Structure formats: C-alpha cells, structure tokens
C-alpha cells in the first residue's frame, strides 16, 4: 500500500467562544477563575507559559497555572489512515479547522462540532484531501439549558447542565451559581453512621457539611476521643484537613475500625471537630462523635452485622421500640451468636399456616372468595404474631428462620394457585406449605417424599390419577412429574461435582443426568396415586392428606431407575398387611434421587441463591453439599446441617463481602415488602394480615408462581455487566420497565395508606405501618392528624435516616444516597399543612427505591 504523501502542520490555536459566566467582563469564565484560583489574570496573558493564553485556557477549561494542562492536538496513523486526536472535556465542544497555508486564507471546519466526552477523541482525516495542511482545534462552550451558564461550568460545580433548575430547585441555576461564587461558607459536622465495630469492616461515616458558597475549600479538622487514630481506626481523609471540591456540599469521612487483640477495651469514641480556617466560618454543630465498639472473638455480632444476618436468614430487622433506634430483633441477636440463634430457631415450634386458614373459613361473612386466606396466614407467620389463629389458647414464639427457608423451598418445590383447582382449596395449599415448613428442618429424603405424594403436587404436576399404560386404549403414563422431580426437585439436568460444577465427559461436554427413557421409567413409578378419600382419579375436596396407593392402577413391572438401580416386578397389595406396590416403587425412586450425587450440590446452590448470594463460589457450594452428604454424624440429607452451613459459611459471614462487586443478591421483590412491613411493625387493628395481590406490583408472592419454573430461573443473567462477567441474577428477571416502576409506586402509596393493593372497606383490617417514633423524629411532635401545628421546629433528619437505614438496609445506605435523601427531606419544610407527612413519606420512599435496599450484600 502506498503511503499518503501528505504533510501536516498543526497549529494549536483556540478561539474563544462566549456563553460562559463572565460577570467581571475579563473574557474568562468566572467559574473557571474560581476553580483554578485564577481571578485577575489578563485575558491575553499566559500565566504558565505553555503557549495558551489565559482566555484560551478558560475556553478549554484547562488550568492556566499548569504548563502541562491544555488540550493537546496530535496526529496518529494506523498505517493506512491519519487521525487527529485530543482529549475533550465533558461540557465543551470542539471543532477541528484547517487551511492550506498559514497567513492568508480562512480556516475551514472539518466536520461538525464534537462534544467532549471526558476522554480521548479522534477524527479520521479524509484521504484525498489537500496534501499539506495546517490544523487547529477550537474549543467552545455549550449551554444545553440556555441559562447563560455553560455546561462545563455547571458540571464543574455539580449542577445539572440540562436543566435550568438543578434538582428542580425553586431557585434558578442562573441565580444560584453567581451567588454561590462569592457567598460565605459555614461548616458543620453531621453523622451518617455513628457506629463501627472492631470485627466488622463497615465504617462509621462523619460528614463535613458546607452551607453557603460553591468555592473549593480546605477545611481544618481535628480527630480526638478515646480511640487513637492509626492503631484503633483509620480515616478516609488524609491529614487534618477535609477538602470540599467546587460546588460540593458534603464530604464524607469514613472511620474504618482496626481490630486488635485487646479484648478488654471499653467502647471507644472518635470525635471529628472542625477548626477555623480560610474561606469559611464554623457553625454551632462543629463536631461529631462516633462509637467504636470493642469486639472479641466470643462477642455477639454488632448491630450492622446482625441486621445483615437477619436480612439473609429472616425477614430483616423489625422496629425499635425501646428508644435506642436499634431494631428489637437485632438487639436480641447482638446478645447471642449466630450459631446459638440458629439452634434456637431449630427448636422453636412450627408456625403452621393451616390453623389460620381454618379460622378464616369459619368466620361468618369474612371469607371473601377473592381473598387469599393462605397468604393472610403467611403474613401472620412472617410478622411473627404470637397465635397461629386469633382464638388460639396458647401463644408461641415466632420462627422466622423456618419461615424464610420454607419460602425458599416453596420456590423450588413449586405449586401455584394459578391452577384454579388449587386456588380454590387454600387449606390444601396451606397444608402443603406446612409440610415444607415441617420438613425444612428435617431430612431432605422426607421432604422429597412428602412433596411427591402430596395431592396438591399431584394435581399441579398431574400424577394424581396417573394410570398404568393401557395397550388397548393406547394410553401411557403421564410423564410430567417424572420429569420435574428430576429436573427441578432433586438432581437437575447435568451431572455435577460436589462443588456444583458440571462433570465433563472425555470430549469436554457436560453429561446429562437422565434420558427420555429414564423419564418414561419414572413415569411408570408415579402411577397408581390418587386422593385418599375417593375412587382412583376421582373428586375430593380434601387436599390435606397424602395421596394413597391404588395398586390396580399402578404399573407393577420392573423399572430401571438412575445409576443402574432397578426395581423388581411387584405384587399388588392383596393382604391386609402386605405392602402397596405403588409405595414401594415411589420409595425406591425417592431413595434413588435422594442418594444421587447431584442432590446435595443441586439443593445447595438454590438455597444459597435464595438466602445469601446469586453467585456462590464452588467452594461454598462444596462446603454445603458436604454437609448434605454427611452432617458430621453420618446422616445424609440433614436440612439443619445444610441451613446452618449456608448461614455460617465464611462466604456468607465474612465482612469482606461488603466491598466485593459480585457478592450478594437482589432482594426478592416480594420480600422487600415483607422487610418493609417488619421494619415498621405493620399491623391491623384486628391483629391479623388481610394481605394479598402482591404479584400485581412485584411479580412475586407466595404460592403464585406462573409455572413450575418459579418466578425466575436460577441461571437468569440480564444483558450487560453481569452477563459479561459470567454472573447470574435470578431476581432481576422480574425487574423490568413495568415492575421497576410499579414496585416503587407500591411503597409510595403503602407508607401512608396501608399495605393493601386494593385497599379494604373494613378499617379494622387495614394493615398500616406504625410510624409514631419515626414521625416524632421527623417532625418533633406527632400531630393528631394530617395538620401540623404551626410554629414548631424543623428537626434535623439525620437521626431518623440513620434509624431507617439500619432497619431497612442494615446500615448499608451509601453516604451519597443518605445526603440526597436528607436534602430532599429538608426541602419539604415548611411546605403545606401536611408537610410532616410528606417529608416522612419521602424519606422512607427514597430508601425503598435505592439500590442499597434493592440489593442485599
């Protein structure tokens, strides 16, 4: 290829273009002057002697006092074409101009203006142009919102260049910015997170806060208190200053605890105090103190650690009622250890759903056909009401771990009232759910067996009334359950290693666990089962008792199961004490699946995904499946050992996960509602939970999956960063443009109105949040109605947001999120008569919409 015979000369001249703020009329941007401390420079001068005049550097947004700061224009070639390149700043636009010779002649623009993107930009120069040329780059300002402040200026100050009112402020940017260039600054100190603990890496967060101006500031601070900087803690800021950039209102100082071997220390304090300095005055709130808790290897978890655990293992923190702003169940957990808490949960009585469903059915006039009574009951158990039914004589302890694991199991062993036969028999479905709750802490073999012979499952996956083959009528056994019991309930599609990875054959291909021939064999196993109280395949209204065997409808022939197991020719039940052939075959099939090497890793991955993280490491799965294989006492399938390992595993517990970009899971959308209800002890006057229809907004609710494949698939990966990293995020499958708006709207309405989707005409049944304490923190008083008494104070919302943060996100709210929520709340005062309600609603709403609430880490 012939190289182009061109020569290029570059003239890096810049032409100034207007539209920047220039109140002092010196042809240089006022904002630029402030940022670079460049006021008073002559436009034509060149303070850093880099050949770029001060005015040109202003137009380009570069530093007039740094000889290396200017928009360099350079030529490169890839061997074929020539490219002109430069580094463009966001908010500026650039035009490449050319003319054939210096001196006379006009500069011609090469192509349209190009917007800077904060990085290198290149233009391919047209082949076949003039063989020699001179080029220059012209930088100019853009003013997208036409308010007289350039985009570069607005961006440099943290303003919104596309709107005349940043954050929809009542004051125009064109007024705020000029005023802010010279306004006096007042510095105060706030706290976004007032505790940290030696053995938990989540930092405490202090805030250096500025009111008034937009200037860059260096604030002098001092750290004091009983803890020593360095040995006891480190700070995210360096030295004894905190810097605030142009326009920055808050700087966060993170206090990172350092664990030490001294287990005898008391709780220590760290105080940040703002000292006098240039460019600001110090406000009344000039210091903030956070606590650093001593922790020993034997001590219970800290509050944030405990809250995180309850989000994983239960339904999240509940509401503080003793005034220390630590949720009661978090405090309870802080007083024990995770292991002891789990053991206690194992020992608690089972919170069955069926008694409540039965109670409701017996209430005159209260059994609305559209009300999902089993979900009402579900909510009672999740909220931990003391009685299984309102008229029960005895109370019992709540069992959140069992309820949470049971809900996870209900998403693996799926039945759904999208099947009308099931929807109209809530007691049967409650009985099925109670079976899951019972077996959740039992043995997996019993779980799989009970699932397989439950009439609700028999109806849902159609093996109830499944007949042996009939060669005359040309009918064959139903294969539905045979397939799903393997694919979804026990072993999955591919042979697995104990760590959940796929086994590969000699060609490197995954190995199927079964063939269609296996399915036809298992289909023959699951013949001869039907309702206990009617003829084979007949009608029943009692879905609460296991299916029974009808050996005359069962295929008695030998069957080939998996991994070489076979069953013999059976003899039909013929004597009072002889066994049922049907049940012998079902037993054999369940044993076959239970003992399959896939059973442990297959269950482990799914339970970890429901409770802890979407992408567990193979080692984590391996540790859980090892417990499945042997609980330490030689027992296979011990669910307690499995659950305990999932929750206590280092991968679940180690605080390093907090900063791991791939750890965690999207909270299940429905469970967000439950977390929300718990965090405010939602209740009705009648004491029970007339709640259902959550799937409309959240695409999820108990026992209402659209199919046996649950609400989302374990391997779902949304397009973009997660897929590119080879990761999955099952719950994201039900977050889309529709549900992604309807779910926030639900919370918006539920904060004030109640948790019902449709509402209810009976006020005594309206489930509402208890917001008394929150309102007191929000407004200083709890007004009796929606009218706020005039003349009362406007309390700082920090304490309220800290309380909400711990209860809803386990204390993981990003400081920047905290700031924007705080600032939004402060804008409400002193709005309309109901400003106090609106302000609290806004504070809670903005946490429920945050990514911090959406993802448990």
């Amino acid at each position, binding site marked *: 290829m012939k190289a182009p015979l061109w020569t290029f000369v570059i003239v890096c001249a810049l032409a100034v273009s207007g539209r920047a703020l220039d109140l002092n009329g010196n042809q240089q941007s006022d904002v630029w002057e402030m940022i670079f401390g460049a006021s008073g420079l002559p436009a034509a001068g060149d303070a850093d002697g880099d050949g770029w005049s001060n005015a040109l550097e202003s137009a380009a947004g570069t530093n007039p006092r740094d000889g290396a700061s200017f928009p360099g224009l350079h030529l490169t070639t890839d061997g074929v074409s020539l490219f002109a390149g430069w580094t463009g700043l966001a908010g500026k636009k650039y035009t490449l101009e050319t003319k054939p010779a210096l001196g006379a002649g006009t500069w011609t623009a090469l192509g349209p203006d190009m917007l800077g993107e904060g990085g290198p930009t290149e233009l391919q120069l047209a082949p076949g142009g003039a063989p020699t040329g001179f080029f220059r780059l012209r930088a100019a300002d853009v003013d997208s919102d036409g308010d007289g402040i350039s985009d570069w200026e607005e961006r440099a100050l943290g303003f919104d260049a596309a709107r005349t009112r940043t954050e*929809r402020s009542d004051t125009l940017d064109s007024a705020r910015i000029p005023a802010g260039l010279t306004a006096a600054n007042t510095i105060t100190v706030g706290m976004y997170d007032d505790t940290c603990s030696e053995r938990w890496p989540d930092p405490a967060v202090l805030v250096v806060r500025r009111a008034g101006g937009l200037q860059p500031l260096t604030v002098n601070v001092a750290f004091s208190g009983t803890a020593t900087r360095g040995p006891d803690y480190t700070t995210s800021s360096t030295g004894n200053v905190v810097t605030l950039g142009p326009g920055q209102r808050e700087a966060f100082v993170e206090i990172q605890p350092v664990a030490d071997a001294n287990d005898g220390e008391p709780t220590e304090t760290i105080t940040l105090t703002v000292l006098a300095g240039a460019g600001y005055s110090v406000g009344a709130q000039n210091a903030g103190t956070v606590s650093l808790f001593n922790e020993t290897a034997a001590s219970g978890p800290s509050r944030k650690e405990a809250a995180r655990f309850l989000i994983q293992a239960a339904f999240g923190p509940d509401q503080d009622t003793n005034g220390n702003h630590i949720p009661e169940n978090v405090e309870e957990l802080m007083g024990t250890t995770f292991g002891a808490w789990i053991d206690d949960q194992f020992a608690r009585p089972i919170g069955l759903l069926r008694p409540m469903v039965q109670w409701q059915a017996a209430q005159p006039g209260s059994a609305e056909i559209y009300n999902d009574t089993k979900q009402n009951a579900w909510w009672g158990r999740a909220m931990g009401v003391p009685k299984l039914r309102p008229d029960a004589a005895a109370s019992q302890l709540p069992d959140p771990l069992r309820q949470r694991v049971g809900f996870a199991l209900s998403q693996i062993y799926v039945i759904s009232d999208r099947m009308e036969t099931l929807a109209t028999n809530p007691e049967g479905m409650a009985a099925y759910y109670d079976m899951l709750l019972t077996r959740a802490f039992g043995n997996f073999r019993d779980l799989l067996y009970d699932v397989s012979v439950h009439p609700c499952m028999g109806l849902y996956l159609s093996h109830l009334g499944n007949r042996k083959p009939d060669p005359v009528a040309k009918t064959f056994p*139903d294969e539905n359950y045979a397939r799903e019991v393997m694919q979804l309930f026990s072993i999955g599609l591919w042979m697995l290693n104990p760590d959940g990875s796929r086994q590969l054959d000699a060609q490197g291909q995954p190995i199927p666990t079964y063939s269609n021939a296996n399915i036809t064999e298992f289909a023959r196993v699951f013949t001869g089962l039907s309702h206990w109280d009617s003829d084979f395949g007949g009608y029943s209204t009692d879905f609460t008792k296991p299916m029974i065997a009808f050996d005359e409808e069962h295929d008695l022939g030998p069957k080939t199961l998996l991994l070489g197991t076979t069953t013999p020719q059976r003899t039909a039940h013929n004597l009072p004490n002889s066994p049922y052939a049907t049940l012998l075959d079902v037993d054999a099939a369940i044993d076959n699946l239970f003992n399959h090497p896939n059973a442990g890793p297959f269950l482990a991955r799914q339970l970890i995904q429901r409770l802890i993280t979407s992408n567990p490491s193979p080692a984590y799965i391996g540790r859980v499946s090892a417990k499945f294989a042997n609980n330490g006492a030689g027992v296979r399938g011990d669910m307690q050992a499995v659950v305990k390992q999932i929750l206590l595993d280092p991968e679940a517990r180690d605080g390093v996960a907090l900063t791991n970009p791939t750890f965690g899971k999207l909270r299940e959308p429905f469970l967000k509602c439950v977390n929300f209800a718990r965090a405010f002890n939602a209740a009705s006057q009648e004491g029970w939970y007339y709640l259902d229809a959550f799937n*409309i907004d959240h695409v999820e609710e108990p026992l209402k999956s659209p*199919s046996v494949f649950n609400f989302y698939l374990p391997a779902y*990966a949304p397009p973009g960063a*997660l897929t590119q990293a080879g990761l999955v995020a099952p719950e994201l499958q039900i977050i889309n443009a529709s549900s992604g708006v309807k779910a*926030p709207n639900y919370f918006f309405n539920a904060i004030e109105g109640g948790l019902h989707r449709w509402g209810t005409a009976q006020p005594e049944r309206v489930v509402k949040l208890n917001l008394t304490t929150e309102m007191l923190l929000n407004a200083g008083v709890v007004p009796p109605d929606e009218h706020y008494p005039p003349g009362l104070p406007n309390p700082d919302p920090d304490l309220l947001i800290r309380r909400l943060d711990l209860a809803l996100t386990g204390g993981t709210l990003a400081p920047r999120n905290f700031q924007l929520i705080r600032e939004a709340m402060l804008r409400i005062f002193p709005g309309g008569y109901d400003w106090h309600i609106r302000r609290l609603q806004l504070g809670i709403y903005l946490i429920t919409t945050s*990514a911090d609430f959406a993802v448990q880490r």
Partner: protein
Amino acid sequence: MKTRRQFLGQASCAAVSSIPILSTLLNLRLAGSVAAVTAPTAGQYRALVCIFQSGGNDSFNMLTPYSGASATAASAFAEYTASRSDLALGQAQLTEIHPTNTPGRTFGVHGGMPQLAALFESGNAAFVANVGTLIEPVLNRTQVAQATKRLPLGLYSHSDQIEQWQTSVPHSRSGVGWAGKMADLIKSVNATQTVSMNISTDGSNVWQTGVTDAEYAVDSGNDNDPTGGAVALSGYAQDYAANAFVDATSGAIDSQLALEYTNLLQQTFQKKRRGARDAYALYSTATAGALPGNVVFPNTSVGRQLQQVAKAIAGRTALGAVRQTFFVNRGGWDHHSNTLALQAAMLPEIDAALGAFWTQLGLLGVQPNVTIFSASDFGRTLTSNSQGSDHAWGGNAYVVGGSVLGRKIYGSYPSLAVNPDSGPEVNPLDTGRGRLIPTTSCDQFFAEMALWLGVPTSSLPLILPNIGNFYAGSGAPLGFLA
C-alpha cells in the same frame, strides 16, 4: 470521510468478545460481522408480533387432518382419531379449511378458533406444520435413537424448549434471543433507542434479550383495571412543578438514579430503573391517543396484551420506530390432564383477541405491515396419558398478516400414525408415543420473518446460527411472506 474512529460496531465487538456466554467460534463470527453490518434501509414500517403459548400447546388439535389421505392412511382423519384416542376431536368440533397447496386434502382448525380459520380462508393467515427445534435435519427415529444427528439439548423439557424457541440456539444454553440479536443488528434504523425496538407486554423474556439491551416492558393491566400501558412513577414529574414535594421527590429520584455503584447487581438495578424512567416519558406520550374505531378487545390476558401492542403500533411515529417486535405471552398450555376442556376454553381466548387485533390493525391501516406468529414450547404426544398429553417436539404454528401469503400450509403436515410397540415401523418421524420429529426447523420459520423485517440474508447466521443447515441463502426459506 470523517467518521468517529471508535464507531458503534467496534464498541459492540469489544463488548461481545468479553462475554463468556458468547465465546464460541460461532459468536466470534457474529461479533466480527456485527461490526461490518450496515443497517437495512428503513423503508416502510414493519413489526413482528410473537404470541407465545407457553407450556406446550397441543397443536395437533389446533390444526388437524379433515379429509383426504395421508402418506400412511387412506383417511388421514381416521388415522388422527386412532392415534389420539381419547384426545381426538370430532369433525363437528373442527372448522374445515381448504389450503390451496394440499391437493386432495382439507384440514381442520380447532372449533374454538373460528376467526383464525376465517383469516386462513381469506388468505390472511397460514400455518407452518410440524415445526420445531433442530440443529440439523433429522430424518427418522433411527437417527434419534442412534444419535447420528446432533439433537437439541433438553428435548421435551419446558425450560430448554421455551428457551430454544426464543434463542434458536438449540445446541447450547444461551440467554440471548433471536429478536434481541435482530435489535442489536438493525435497531439503528429507528430514530431513537429510548424505547427499545423490542417491546414486551409480558415482562422480561429471552426472545427480546440482546447482547447489551433488553426489552421495554409495558404493563398490560389486569382484570379489574385493563388499561395498562407505560407506568408513571409516583411523585415524579419530568419538569419543575413549583410544588415542594414533587420537586424534592423528582430531583432526588434523578440524583439517586445518577449514582454509580461498583457492585454489579446494584449497577444493573440502577441501569434498569434509569431505562424505565427515560422510556416512560416518551412511551406514555406516544401511546396516549385513543385507538381508532372503538374496537373492543376482550378483557383477557392476551386481549389486553394485544391492545397494548396496538397502542404501541399506533404510536410508532412518535416512538421513532420503523421496526418493532412485540412479545405477547399466554401461559397455561401444559395440559397433561383435562386437555380437551382446557383447550376448548383457552384457544377461543387467543382467537377472540387475535380477531380484535386484526380489526384494529385494519383501522390503523397497517395490516400489511404487521406479521403475527405463534410459538410454543413444543408439540405434545399424539397418544394420551389417559387424561391429557405429554411433552413432545414438532408442532403447528399459525402466521397472520397482510403480507402473509395465506391459505397455505407451509412445511409438511406429517403423518400422524404412531408406531406400534413391536412390528414394522409405520411412521419414521414418530420417536415414540407420537413425539414427532420436526420436518421444518424453527430456523426456517424465523428466517422468513427476520428477512422480512430487514435482516440481510448474509447476516442470518448471526441471528440463527444453524440456518445454513436448512437454507442455502437464495429464494425464501419457507415462502409465507411476500
């Protein structure tokens, strides 16, 4: 020419090559070609509407033999009746149709679908017979039994077959759908990408998931409130409202959505919500007008969904769309039991919605611009399990549209004979229990529609990687679209 060096194609190439799921040779080919592909010229508006019947529609009762002989029986209908035993429909339960390309034979459409039958007879609808997932042609059951041909993964399994109907990648598990890939390739013909070229009335789905972007999901309402559409975010206003609460809320929401997270789950969640906010403003305006003609859509799941589709089509200009796909889903077809009654209840629901939609398309003047097709996990066993039918393979699909060369059955309607347990083979396509090997591949079916939508022939393998095993690249893959 002065072009940006880092043009779109290269950017997406870089993105693609780092995706493990696409790291096969095939998809590297895809990546290379995406960069080189030029978008089709816009031309007139065209849209594809997929009516997915998830669960596995028993489609050999949707399209049955009626009169004439099959390859294996003098009376194809008697053969049908014998194979289907207690699942067989009588002729009184069928509407007879008269294809112009099946000399000597007529067929039956399920009696619950009179409007589809009428559309067929009037030349606006066609069927594609015995279509299913295939990697390469499979001629007979021996090739299946001896595995001399490569077979789709997870045959007869819902999750796999639903996925493969939506990806047309039966040889591996992929979460990228063929409409998503089409959008990656041709979406630039649309003036704006704020609202995706791919719109779903049933939430997230594989079919419309591309490498970098997913569907835009709109709400289709519910029984009590069938309105649906784009959903507004409570408390949020696009512009300054001079209301402290609304302005504080809206400003905070925008600031919140601008936050960047290092955790990939949080990052993705933010991206989804940002997309929803941006799309809402455009979509709600574009679809705000009333549809012409007061067409009454049935208040059923599929009726409400198709009404939303009609609104989006009516708003196509404002949406900047000259190409669109729509995903409509009606689940509940897994009729292992009670097949006859359930189909008799559910097929009319599809039919009534389809009829209303067709009328609405006429009033919008876009019947030639829209092609509707059905899809389902699989066909079902011809034989009965005494209550219903089980999972199988090939099945029948319908296509409806003004550009459809109708009143024909495309592909080959198979013999419905079932092989006896012993004795000579009567139907080489029957792999057992009347699970029929497809005689037309999904690739052929989809290629016809992809070409119609504007995908260049040379780019078909990017979307349908196995198409080369079924289609040489000249003429039409099946010929049902003009």
